[in-house]
């Protein structure tokens, strides 16, 4: 029922939290409940390449069946010297509850800035990844409802992607999809990035089958893959759409690309 009351035209004022006045309750009695979380939908995606990493997210912000914004970014540069983040080398993406995502981003950003101020050098991704896990776990019993992915280049200059659950479990991976359409995108990534279920033609049957050898994908290939993944997700998930924001992290810094997605 809560799902339908999101539309202000139908039911008068709408409440994003569960403290709406109870209709039909006995006079004077009012149930007080505070639900601190909302799911704002959307989806994110990160792929690590040989010498780059791409972080992507759609720009739709929803609550229930309504679209609150078509231009709400989910991917952020982290730990630059200034607020405009022109020299940032790390990128964070967040999906889930937008307010928690925003708070998490601000927190991690200020920590990275403090690190730069104290040590006179930027934080590397590995350290930042561990710190993000700590931040999330510190709120183990009132978590940030956000699925975070952190991307950058490691000490050897290779693309690095770290994915998180809301309470700080994390893992370095080749690729990861997060958010509402994660279940649609993730098998596609297995298939197209890690070549899962792909075998060398004519290599035999059963155990004789030879897996197709993995090779690092070029930046262009990955950009196309990301666009295809989101085009698929947009088609079948109502919470995903409007715009595709991509951050490409290379040794030259972070490049931001904005592409249109379907707006229906």
């Amino acid at each position, binding site marked *: 029922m809560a799902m339908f009351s999101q539309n202000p035209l139908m039911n008068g004022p709408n409440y994003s939290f569960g403290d709406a006045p109870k209709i039909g309750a006995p006079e004077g009695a009012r149930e007080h409940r505070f639900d601190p979380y909302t799911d704002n939908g959307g989806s994110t995606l990160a792929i690590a390449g040989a010498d780059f990493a791409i972080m992507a997210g759609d720009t739709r912000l929803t609550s229930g069946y309504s679209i609150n914004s078509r231009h709400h970014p989910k991917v952020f540069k982290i730990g630059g010297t200034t607020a405009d983040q022109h020299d940032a080398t790390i990128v964070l993406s967040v999906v889930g509850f937008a307010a928690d995502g925003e708070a998490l981003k601000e927190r991690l950003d200020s920590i990275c800035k403090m690190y730069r101020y104290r040590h006179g050098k930027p934080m590397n991704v590995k350290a930042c990844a561990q710190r993000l896990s700590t931040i999330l776990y510190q709120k183990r019993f009132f978590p940030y409802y956000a699925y975070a992915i952190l991307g950058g280049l490691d000490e050897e200059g290779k693309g690095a992607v770290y994915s998180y659950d809301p309470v700080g479990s994390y893992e370095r991976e080749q690729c990861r999809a997060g958010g509402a359409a994660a*279940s649609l995108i993730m*098998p596609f990534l297995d298939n197209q990035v890690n070549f899962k*279920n*792909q075998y060398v033609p004519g290599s035999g049957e*059963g155990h004789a089958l030879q897996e197709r050898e993995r090779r690092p994908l070029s930046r262009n290939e990955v950009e196309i893959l990301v666009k*295809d993944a989101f085009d*698929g997700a947009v088609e*079948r998930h109502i919470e995903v759409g409007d715009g595709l924001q991509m951050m490409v992290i290379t040794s030259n810094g972070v490049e931001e690309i904005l592409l249109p997605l379907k707006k229906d």
Partner: protein
Amino acid sequence: MVGKDCVAIACDLRLGLQALTVSNNFPKIFQYGDNVFLGLTGLATDLSTVSDLFRYKVNMYRLREERNIAPKTFANLVSSSLYEKRFGPYFVSPVVAGLDPKTSKPFICGFDSIGCIDFAADFIVSGTATDQLYGMCESLWEPNLAPEDLFETISQALMSAVDRDALSGWGAHVYIIEKDKVTKRLLKGRQD
């Protein structure tokens, strides 16, 4: 899945009760005539009941009409049979695939458990790995695939999708239906 002058239908082989796998050889695709196929997912007992029921109904149709049932006719039979049980439904979500016996045009459609038909021009998915299958099909499928390419597409889509679903997998059956030829293939897949 629809291709150029052909259709494909595929299923996994797992039968399980929640997390426990009871059988790893439980096909979910049934043939009713030369080129009419029905895929079923849902409650296993209703899978058997429904597939047996349609075998009976299609056999009776063949005896009465002295011809095979067409996919479109069969789809409407499925729909009306499921709607008959509107207030105590069979817990299945069927998929029909076939070629029209007269025009050889590909035909696919899906249903909810009470028989609402979903006609599609591209693909239909059903079962516990629906989300994953939508993601795969939406990105791998393209119009006018030749039979061999359609086989590769449907197989890659199914295998990758079920590998991301704990409740599906354990191999697969794939049928490629052409004008005067039906090819059935068994895919081994991951055994976990």
